[in-house]
């Protein structure tokens, strides 16, 4: 976790440094705001990294006014589940890219419920059908959202 905290600071320093470097080539008006934001960001992220390198731990009162992840799951299981969750999300986006939204919706719901959650085949089919009907009726027929064609369909000329 300590290394992760330091890596996050390094990431912020990298973002701020890149912004400063790129801003230097722009006209004054365009560069003023990014420069006046990224220079203090660089200083603050460096300060935080310095504190971490010195081994100064944060106090409870400096905790963020924000969500805290649950800590009652063993780290190894946690890591595996995080990777699984991000894989499903990335898979969803890849599927939208390849076959488009309308086909991805039933496919994703069906695969997730069947393979990740372990729902029975009949219930999965029913949930998939209902979801697809709502998606089609609401977003395509009622709201008329235009969904891009998938790359695969475009390639096959469908």
């Amino acid at each position: 976790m300590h290394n992760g905290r330091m890596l996050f600071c390094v990431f912020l320093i990298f973002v701020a440094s890149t912004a400063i470097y790129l801003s230097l080539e722009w006209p004054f008006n365009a560069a003023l705001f990014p420069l006046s934001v990224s220079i203090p960001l660089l200083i603050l992220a460096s300060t935080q990294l310095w504190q971490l390198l010195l081994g100064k731990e944060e106090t409870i009162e400096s905790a963020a006014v924000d969500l805290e992840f649950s800590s009652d799951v063993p780290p190894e299981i946690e890591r595996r589940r995080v990777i699984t969750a991000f894989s499903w999300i990335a898979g969803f986006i890849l599927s939208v890219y390849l076959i488009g939204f309308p086909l991805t919706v039933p496919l994703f719901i069906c695969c997730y419920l069947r393979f990740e959650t372990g729902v029975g085949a009949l219930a999965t089919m029913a949930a998939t059908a209902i979801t697809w009907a709502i998606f089609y009726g609401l977003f395509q027929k009622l709201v008329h959202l235009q969904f891009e064609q998938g790359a695969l369909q475009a390639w096959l000329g469908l």
Partner: protein
Amino acid sequence: MFDAFIDGLFLVLQWKAFGLMLVGMGLGFCVGLLPGIGGAATLALMIPFVFKMQPAEAFAFLLGMHAVAATTGDITSVLFGVPGEAISAATVVDGHPMAKNGEAGRALGAALMSSLVGAVIGAVALALAIPIVRPLVLAFGSPELFMLAVIGISCITSLSGAGARGQIKGFAMGLLGLLVSTIGQERQSGSLRFDMGMMYLWDGLDFVPVLVGVFAIPEIIDLTVRGTAIAGERPAENLRNGVIEGIKDTFRHFWLVFRCSVVGVFVGILPGAGGGVAQWMAYAHAVQGAKDAKDRERFGKGDVRGVLGPGAANNSKEGGELIPTVAFGVPGSGAMAILLSAFLIMGLSPGPDMLTKHLSITFSMVWTLVIANIIAVLLCLTILDQLAKVTNIRGGLIIPFVLLLVFVGSYTANGQITDLIVTLIFGVLSYFMVLFGWPRPPFVLGFVLGKVIETYFFISVARYGSSWIRQPMVIFLIMLMVFVIAYPYIQQRRQRAERRANA
């Protein structure tokens, strides 16, 4: 004036106007629940339907829809941690942790009742402001609007952890948000910044994919990791009692709800500030109200005050936004700009006529805001029992549907797959922010306010040179900003002194 006030009520209660308001409310209810499809987009979709309506009917239909979308947006924010509307993102910070603590009913009751109170205060402000709005709006030029946005940014001190380390992290995240807001074409010179050669980035990043990614993805990851229902293994809450408790909370903290409603009205009046700012300023104000460090620690972990503040401000700003729209034809937000087109379709020109000749129509808008919100909240309260049960369903059964909502919502921003990638990128960034204890609210505040600050700064300099900073209202706002920044430190010193005195 009193006659016009009563006439306005009767205009809304006519069967046709009332029926159309109910239809609009039904649409607004669905739109509010769906992330990404904002109230403004739906208003635009519904504009063609108002051509054959009378003015009072058209405004009952459109405003009924818009007012309810702001109210029901809080429901998905609380239940799933996915902001139903961009303006309900702040409700996620404490509303969803409450649902995870098994208090979904209480959070929803508080969100809805504070929304109702906020809407009524906004409508009353609209009614009262009619005679005095002119000098107020004219007193705010670009330098004052710039300073107001800077005050919004200074709220970061309240949204960050206490102590030097907490403040460093908070300000760093605020600056990162400001930096992200600079992506795209610079408005003064037309230069492209951080566009990475992608045309998608020329217009800058849209709020919806970024906000949905920042708030929804870490919640989904957390739910997956826990492998339980949203409310965990806790026994199901007594929902009716929870909802009643939430309603009582609104009145227990009525002074906070009132103050946050005033914040919402004020931000709503000022063109360009937007609802995104109102909710975060209200949230920061709620955090500032913490009695001590221990009390403050409860924010972000499921404190009902963190739900009441943004809930009230979101709805009161509707009344506030209508003030400059009706009085000057200066829309306070994108939704109001669309509403302005409805005025023109109806053959009404916003301005003095709306405050004299068509005063009863102006008051019908006030009544629509009040009546639509009362009906919406009463309806929601009757179905909350069923809605809140969602938090006791196994996470694995909910996640695919929430993911679907998240990505369809983010796709509606530009209709491009890049929207989904932006959501994922900010979701990953936000995951690490939460994991390593960097606060997300300052990032969002910086992102929302970045463009406003830069635009008004350049307009101020171009219009007034360096003299803009010497204007009396600007000096007052600078003093106010110093107070907003210093207040948490003053509070800490006072608490330390009290502790020493007690010891």
